[in-house]
Structure formats: C-alpha cells, structure tokens
C-alpha cells in the first residue's frame, strides 16, 4: 500500500517570501501521479499542482513549483512571493496511474501542513 508523509504540521512565511512544504511517499509502482491540494477554511479542495511520475521535469504553475525526486520519493512544494491568500491547509496526495488497477483513481493523502502567511 502507498503511504504519504508530510512531516511539517505547521509552517509560516512572511508575505512576499518563499516557503517550501515537504512531502515524501512510499510506493512500489513506477507510474503514478502526485498532487498538491490547497484547502482554505471554505473546505473546498483546490488543485495547486500535479506531477506525472514519468516526467523528469518539475511541474510549475505560476508562483508554485515542485521539486520531484523520484528516486528519493520526495515531492516538495515551493511557494514563491507568498501572498495572504496562500494561507490554508496544504495536502500532498498520491494516485496510481495504472488504469484498471485496484488503486486507480484513489487518492492517498498526507497529514497536511497548515501554512500561515504573515503580513
């Protein structure tokens, strides 16, 4: 079974600064997806960024980028130029990419990291 670990229960950052959230995972599969979701107090799960395991290039979405280290099974999220609106709970998640497999479509989440942004 896959596991996802976020070792930072809470992180804080000053507005306009950069912060990195850590995530490690364990799997025996070679083809999978990794996601970072943001959950503000409204509880809506918002997709921040997605990484396909077969891609060596790290995914980026505007101020958000990942450091994907497949061999180390590490998937950290870097938020640049932090904004007050970035304050939320962030979840790292794993999903198998094997169609038809018993785990297909099922997300395994880490414990979450609460990010506070100070003005």
């Amino acid at each position, binding site marked *: 079974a896959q596991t996802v670990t976020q070792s930072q229960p809470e992180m804080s950052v000053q507005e306009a600064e950069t912060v990195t959230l850590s995530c490690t995972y364990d799997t025996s599969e070679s083809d999978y*997806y990794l*996601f970072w*979701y943001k959950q503000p107090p*409204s*509880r*809506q*799960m918002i*997709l921040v960024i*997605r990484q*396909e395991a077969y891609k060596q290039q790290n995914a980026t979405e505007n101020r958000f980028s990942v450091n994907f280290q497949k061999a180390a099974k590490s998937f950290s999220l870097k938020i640049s130029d932090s904004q007050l609106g970035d304050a939320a709970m962030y*979840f790292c*998640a794993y*999903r198998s*990419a094997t*169609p038809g497999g018993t785990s*297909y*479509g*099922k*997300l*395994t*989440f*880490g*414990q*979450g990291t609460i990010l506070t942004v100070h003005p």
Partner: protein
Amino acid sequence: SAVISQKPSRDICQRGTSLTIQCQVDSQVTMMFWYRQQPGQSLTLIATANQGSEATYESGFVIDKFPISRPNLTFSTLTVSNMSPEDSSIYLCSVVGGPSYNEQFFGPGTRLTVL
C-alpha cells in the same frame, strides 16, 4: 474540468438518525469517490461508487453504515446511517477527469455535525 455540486452543504443531525448526501457532476464519469475528513484531519477514502455495480469499500468502512447509490454516470449518494458524534466530519465526493484522466476534482463538501 468537471464541476461537482453537493447537497446539503452542511447539516446538524441528532444521533441515531441518517443523512443522505448527494453528489452531482456536470459530465459523465466512470468512477466517483467518497472521502471523509474528520475535524483537523486528512482525507480518508470511504468507497468507490461504480455505476451498475455495488460500491467498493475501503478497510474500516462498511455498507450498512455508509450505503452508496450510483444510479447513473453523473450522480451518486452517500448515506451516513445511525449517526453518532464520531461521524461529525466533512464528506467530499471526487471524480477522475481531465483529457488524460490525470486530474482529480472535488465537490465543495458537506459539513456534518452530529449532536
């Protein structure tokens, strides 16, 4: 992208009663998933709802407690039966989507409080 709606958005219920949560997707999807998020916790998968067959439950979740219906490719319901305060959680439905099925979309969630 898929747009997902859930009803109700929140509810307060008495212990021993049941609540049915609805999930509607704006496009046809093969697989729908139900997750539970207990207060201050991460999300845990309850079950996979497949159209035309019984739902598949994860370890620790049983059909008698969380019966699921999937009458068509755009709709599913999750019932929380014989509720206790421990069932107080946010319940979210989710679907796989995107042009390469490499995305995962979530509904806005249903916040349930059991007194």
